[in-house]
């Protein structure tokens, strides 16, 4: 029994190996992870909003392609999508980012995430009452204006909790960038931990990376929940000040 616990401790929680891996994870991996997460999130959210609007369109010509986009990107194994974008695009002559692995990885992860973001946003937009749309349209606002100024602000705020969950998945999904091959300085947290784990024949470096992931994602959840609570019950906003 004690022997088993000792084994587990040594394999996953070896303090020396964790301490040894952490500096590189923090100095090299963390910035790379954050950078990739940021790019992928921006791509994912922008495209996701756009596709969500398309999913709600009454025109089949708009609705169906958006539906297909979401179904395919959510249905394919992420690893395959990363390969398709990261290796497929350059092979097809579309070297959008030259030899920069990062660009392809951010694009691939962003595209994958946009499908999930789109479904989350769609649910949020659909939860906005029909009367809100009619109120906006009855004052002469166009469909697009109603979308931008009435539906998106209300819908997006209602889906903050599931959006946070998706952000966490983005952060973790950045580890897929290893599939495309990285130089030492390009490695994100998980790749560094994995290399260290292999070199030391011990899984503790992965635990080190796991701790940093937790340090990123748990506060994020709390911060968004606090923000969510404030939006729901907080003090009235002041009107926009004159510029």
């Amino acid at each position, binding site marked *: 029994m004690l022997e088993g616990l000792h084994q587990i401790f040594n394999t996953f929680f070896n303090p020396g190996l964790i301490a040894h891996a952490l500096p590189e994870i923090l100095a090299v991996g963390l910035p790379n992870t954050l950078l990739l997460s940021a790019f992928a999130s921006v791509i994912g959210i922008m495209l996701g909003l756009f596709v969500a609007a398309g999913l709600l369109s009454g025109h089949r010509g708009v609705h169906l392609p958006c539906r297909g986009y979401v179904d395919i990107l959510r249905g394919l194994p992420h690893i395959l999508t990363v390969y398709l974008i990261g290796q497929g695009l350059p092979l097809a002559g579309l070297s959008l980012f030259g030899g920069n692995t990062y660009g392809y990885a951010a694009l691939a992860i962003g595209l994958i995430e946009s499908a999930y973001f789109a479904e989350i946003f769609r649910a949020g937009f659909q939860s906005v009452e029909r009367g809100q749309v009619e*109120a906006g349209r*009855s*004052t*002469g606002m*166009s469909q697009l204006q109603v979308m931008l100024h009435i539906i998106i602000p209300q819908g997006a705020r209602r889906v903050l909790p599931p959006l946070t969950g998706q952000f966490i998945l983005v952060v973790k999904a950045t580890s897929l960038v290893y599939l495309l091959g990285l130089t030492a300085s390009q490695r994100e947290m998980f790749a560094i931990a994995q290399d260290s784990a292999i070199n030391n024949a011990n899984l503790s470096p992965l635990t080190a990376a796991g701790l940093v992931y937790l340090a990123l994602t748990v506060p994020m959840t709390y911060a968004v929940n606090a923000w969510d609570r404030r939006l729901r019950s907080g003090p009235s*906003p*002041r*009107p926009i000040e004159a510029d």
Partner: protein
Amino acid sequence: MTIDTRGTSVRFEHVNKSFGRVDVLHDVVLSAPGGMTTCIVGPSGSGKSTLLRCANLLERPESGRVLLGDVDIAAPGVNVDAVRARVGMVFQHFHLYPHLCVLDNVTLALRKVRAMDLEQAQATARAKLGAVGLNGLESRRPADLSGGQQQRVAIARALAMDPEVMLFDEATSALDPELVKGVLAVMRDLSKAGMTMLVVTHEMRFAREVASQVVFIDKGRILEQGSPDAFFDAPRHPRLRHFLDQVL
């Protein structure tokens, strides 16, 4: 209340509308003269709200013409947004934008549709909020207001667009009884100021005192219309007599 009264009339000519197999409006002919208040009454499900919503194309008639002034707004190729910017609408459930403060609720369309700058839009909005008796609430959220105040914000939001016609769809039906009066007072002022108004309502006293004509709709047909006195004192159609017996 001072408004720019242009006396734009609204005329429905042989308007038909169905939802699926249900005939909601059947060959409706109605003229709402400019500068006058036309009250539309009838049982629930009679089609009165649908008729009102045809006046700003929230519902599109299947056949017939809807004339705003001289223009058939139901004709193909008409710019719907431009039509709606000329027609204000007030809803039963207010439909204020909950994520915006009172002032921004009123300025949104001014800025996006009328392309006013912020200062001009806010000045217009403050003036209209003042006209409906709501000074000092500009920075509140709709949820912090009473139902009566919310509905007056909604009226101010519609009026700010400087509409030629105002549509009221059961504007007081969702209000607590003690809050109805304030909203009706605003509507009465507006009527006196010469706004063309179409008012779907269950407030028979309001209809009697304010309307120039009252219209009774049942099962998608106009069964009777006339001056308030004739309408309430000498109803001819048996359905209307029965209806008035129930509500008065």
